[in-house]
């Protein structure tokens, strides 16, 4: 698959469980929480598939002082936004691509430092989410908003499909969540509710 979504940033640190990248300034829709991304690993033999779970911007004393200044010119604000304090994006590894095959397990190697991080195209998202094994990888993650991440990822995966297929995909994903969260019905209810809210196409009649 040669489709490349937009470049998001560059990897700065990584591990088998995920990777962190940096970029200058976020665009309106890039990156977003729950978006799928990929970064090259194993000297190009594979691409790690990640799910963005955190987007953060550091500050420093100068930025804090400017934030509380009484009279700040628009140009000072613009300068503070453009200062080279990198936007950090953190991604959870949810699989990898080797050749034409997506595997939904932890990758054999993380991406290398300074590897480019690309957003997955709609076609790639659809292809990756044909199987739903990545849901268990998300649910087993810690120190991140797991349930919100899962809902955002499944919604994105649904939107990558045609209108006709979205409902059936979400039903199948819901069943997989029910299987994995059978012992935590409260949590399952929360996930299903958030998955279906604000979109009448996905509510059941019965």
């Amino acid at each position: 698959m040669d489709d490349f979504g937009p470049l998001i940033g560059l990897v700065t640190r990584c591990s088998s469980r995920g990777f962190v990248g940096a970029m200058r300034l976020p665009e309106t829709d890039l990156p977003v929480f729950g978006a799928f991304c990929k970064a090259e690993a194993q000297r190009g033999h594979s691409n790690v598939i990640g799910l963005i779970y955190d987007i953060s911007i550091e500050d420093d004393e100068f930025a804090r002082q400017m934030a509380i200044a009484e009279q700040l010119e628009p140009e000072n604000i613009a300068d503070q936004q453009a200062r080279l304090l990198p936007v950090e994006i953190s991604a959870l590894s949810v699989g990898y691509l080797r050749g034409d095959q997506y595997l939904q397990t932890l990758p054999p190697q993380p991406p290398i430092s300074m590897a480019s991080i690309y957003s997955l195209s709609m076609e790639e998202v659809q292809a990756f989410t044909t199987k739903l094994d990545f849901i268990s990888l998300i649910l087993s993650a810690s120190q991140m908003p797991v349930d919100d991440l899962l809902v955002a990822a499944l919604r994105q995966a649904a939107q990558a499909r045609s209108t006709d297929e979205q409902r059936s995909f979400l039903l199948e994903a819901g069943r997989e969540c029910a299987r994995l969260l059978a012992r935590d019905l409260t949590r399952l209810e929360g996930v299903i509710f958030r998955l279906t809210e604000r979109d009448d196409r996905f509510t059941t009649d019965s």
Partner: protein
Amino acid sequence: MSLDLLQVLPQVQELGRDAVLRVKTKADMTRDSLQVLHEIAEMDPHHLLDTVERTAGQWRGATPTTERMDETFPPPPMQPQLNVIGSDGSQIYVDRHSPFLYFLINIGSIWIRYGSGSPPQTFSHPHIFHHELQLRDDRGQLISAAIIDKLRDAEEMHELANLAERFSGKPILALLDNNLQMHNGVFLRNHVSTLLGNAFERYQRSMDRLRKAGVALAGFIDRSQSSDLLSLMSLAKWNEGDNRYPGLTDRDVFLNLLPPRHRSAIFQLHLPINAPQQQRDRTIYFIYLNTGSGDQIARIEVPEWVVMDPALMELVHAGILTECQATNGFPYSLIRAHELAVVTDRERQALDHWITTICLQHGLQLQPSQKATTKRWLSRPRHHGL
């Protein structure tokens, strides 16, 4: 830890007691000096200049201009559109203990167009000097830190001139975090080294370019220790060439004179006859400015062409106030220029590592001096973990 705090503590306590006494003494001196300032402000300026002439060129201090010396000037209207350029430099000095001899000058600069809403443009220009001719002065000695400082000053001014010509569009205020007297204190037994001479010429050419571009150039000095005006007061009142108020600075006087956002009268800097000709050819003027933030009184140095143009002087006054309003009294552009210029210890170590690596690729194995190596032995304690 090698600092014996038990020995230091009583000295710190004495410092504290002394500081309180000094504040009281300074308050008394300040009141007295203000009175003297008002007195000499009444004097005929020509009489004052005659007094200065009678020092036969042995005196440094301030001389009055057409503005009354104790007068304060309110802020002019803020400019709706204002271009500010600021530059600052930092350096890595030559270190004979490092694996390779070099020095680096890094110039950071910024262009802010107030009133446009656009983000400023920022620049950073590092330059490594490593050729033998660049590393030695006329006597074959390793180039000193003092000369590298002046090379840096010349590059800061050069960068301002470049920006002013590149981004034409008046009005332009150009700021340096420094005085404008480049040669201040740097001479080797009255001999101007070739390196320093070249730097000075570059500095002067850059100032000429700024003058031709009609730029309001200003040097911003925070916590100035100058006493040029106090020297004039001492000369005028008691015929004494030196500041009669030890420990008191011009800044202390203006702290008690200037309302917020007001500037002082313009003064001319008078130099002794044995100052370098190049320095005496370029007349420098100065004001003091209450930036409006607490007791922040800055000394602002300007060249003659700025003083001769009231619009440029107003630009200096209003522009610096604009720059200082969000930052408690220090120009925003100079904060950013410094940030763009500064070379951290970590970056310096990374640079040394790259140099060593590159030389190794060319078959050269470099080593720091044994002194530097032993310092590394002492620098990183580790704790035994069980």
